[in-house]
């Protein structure tokens, strides 16, 4: 895998300016949010009744909320949770999807049929309502949220990986390895998976953005991580009531979501182009 990334793919990606700029944005936001406890000017739950509902100023770059808490601090802390859940659930979902896709494509027959029908079933159930129900079963903490979101976002990866595996299986080197007596496990992990890595990586990148949106939607409905722990979603839920008079409470957390998801999607797009330059559709 490392070789793949040092090779033309990496060079192609570096040519994709938007993807490179987005990587910087995502990396920067991730680092700043993760280091929020050190970097943020205030404590995320520091109530200051002397300065409630202030518009953005030098002391409070994004203003303050109903309890006088610094919004900038809370956006940084909220980002920690959103980004962590996004990355973790993308890893879980992509891992699960790859596993299911490889097994289905590799074994074929009844295993394939069963797994693909399961995929159809889960694909047909709207994700958010199902997520709402499942998340109510456990405590809304980062690990369980990431797990649940991951468990509901493997289907696309499974289908794509299965398709790749079916295509790769036809190629001679897999036949050759098999004739040399390679075990099934070895075939899958050493020969097939590395060749399907392209679409897996692209899918994982896009999954991060989707997971962040799902998590924030859930928090927005009041069903995700609960206050006082700030997330971008539950901050927006709080802001809804005072939207008319204190628009900054609505604008900043939303912009944060938009910026991260947009950047992550740009990276995914760049990766796609880099991994498959022939499939470029002439996107400017």
């Amino acid at each position, binding site marked *: 895998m490392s070789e793949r990334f040092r090779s033309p793919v990496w060079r192609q990606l570096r040519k994709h300016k938007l993807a490179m700029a987005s990587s910087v944005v995502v990396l920067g936001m991730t680092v700043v949010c993760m280091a929020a406890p050190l970097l943020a000017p205030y404590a995320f739950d520091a109530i200051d009744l002397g300065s409630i509902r202030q518009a953005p100023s030098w002391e409070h770059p994004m203003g303050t909320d109903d309890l006088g808490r610094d919004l900038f601090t809370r956006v940084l802390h909220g980002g920690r949770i959103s980004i962590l859940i996004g990355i973790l659930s993308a890893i879980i979902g992509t891992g699960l999807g790859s596993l299911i896709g490889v097994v289905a494509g590799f074994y074929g027959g009844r295993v394939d049929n069963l797994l693909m029908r399961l995929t159809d079933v889960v694909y047909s*159930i709207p994700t958010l*309502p*199902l997520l709402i129900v499942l998340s109510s079963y456990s405590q809304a903490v980062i690990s369980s949220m990431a797990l649940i979101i991951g468990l509901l976002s493997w289907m696309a990866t499974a289908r794509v990986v299965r398709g790749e595996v079916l295509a790769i299986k036809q190629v001679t080197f897999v036949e050759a390895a098999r004739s040399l007596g390679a075990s099934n496990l070895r075939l899958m992990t050493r020969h097939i998976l590395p060749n399907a890595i392209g679409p897996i990586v692209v899918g994982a990148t896009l999954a991060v953005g989707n997971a962040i949106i799902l998590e924030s939607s859930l928090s*927005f*409905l009041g069903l995700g991580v609960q206050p006082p722990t700030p997330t971008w979603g539950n901050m*927006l839920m709080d802001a809804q009531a005072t939207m008319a008079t204190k628009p900054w409470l609505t604008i900043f957390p939303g912009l944060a*979501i*938009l910026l991260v998801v947009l950047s992550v999607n740009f990276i995914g797009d760049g990766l796609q182009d880099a991994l498959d330059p022939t499939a470029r559709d002439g996107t400017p």
Partner: protein
Amino acid sequence: MISYIGRRILQMIPLVFGISVVLFAVIQAAPGGPEGALLESGRFIDPQVIEAYRQRLGVDQPVHIQYVRWLGAALSGDLGISFSTTRPVAEMILDRLPATVELMASAFLLAALVALGLGVFSAVRQYSLFDYLGTGFSFVGIAMPVFWFALILQLIFSVKLGWLPVSGTETVGASSLLDHLLHLILPAVVLSFRYIAGWSRYLRSSLLGVLRADYVRTARAKGLPERVVVGIHALRNALIPLISIMALNMAALFSGAVITETVFAWPGIGRMFVQAMFARDYPLLMGILMMGSIMVVVFNLVADILYGILDPRIRYE
């Protein structure tokens, strides 16, 4: 063709069955069991009464027996009784379903029409300023959280400008068709936005591919005007793969409707779902999940049939 449609409908049955099994299992997994929410809500104190209820609900039986019972009842249109209102779930859903269908259909049509225009124009004018703006717009549209976009539109068009109502379906005391349509605009725009972005971008790249095809050159060689070349010869081919994408997006459209209805207080099954969640009304949750999934499956069926009509290469055997 008829037999093809018939076969596709038959193929739906195991899919819907599978969905019901998964959903039933999910609901059964509720901590304390789905009936726990009702029985331990404090409404009932006498253990005998609770036991009587358990028997009446059938929850003393093994899970698979419960499922078979549920399935039997569901097939005859009985989705159980709501814990929160004690009304039949099926009735509650049917009351609210038209509002959801109206919202989803409006959003779908809006998305399809606008995406068609944007996609075709961007492809025909590739690398123009319009194309760049369209691509930028679609990236933003795909990355924008639905609920935040809803809030921003409310902020601008309802609160600041006062042009459109903030939420609901009608102005109390001044309801009319026009008033209702004004209430529909913001939710429909919010729900369609993501799909306008996604579908227009998809159509653009699909059309760019088709415009390079040999048969498009043939059409030009016949001396057909560009509008016929693009609008008939290229577009029909470019739309075929888009239909699959639309079908794939239907589950997400329903998810979007849940949020949109909640933000705009739109009285559909999506908003009812969120309310049912806070009330731990599991029969109602199960019913709505089932309904939403069936809507997705039915739409996929329609898309499949449409695919068959648009692409003569699909075999019906």
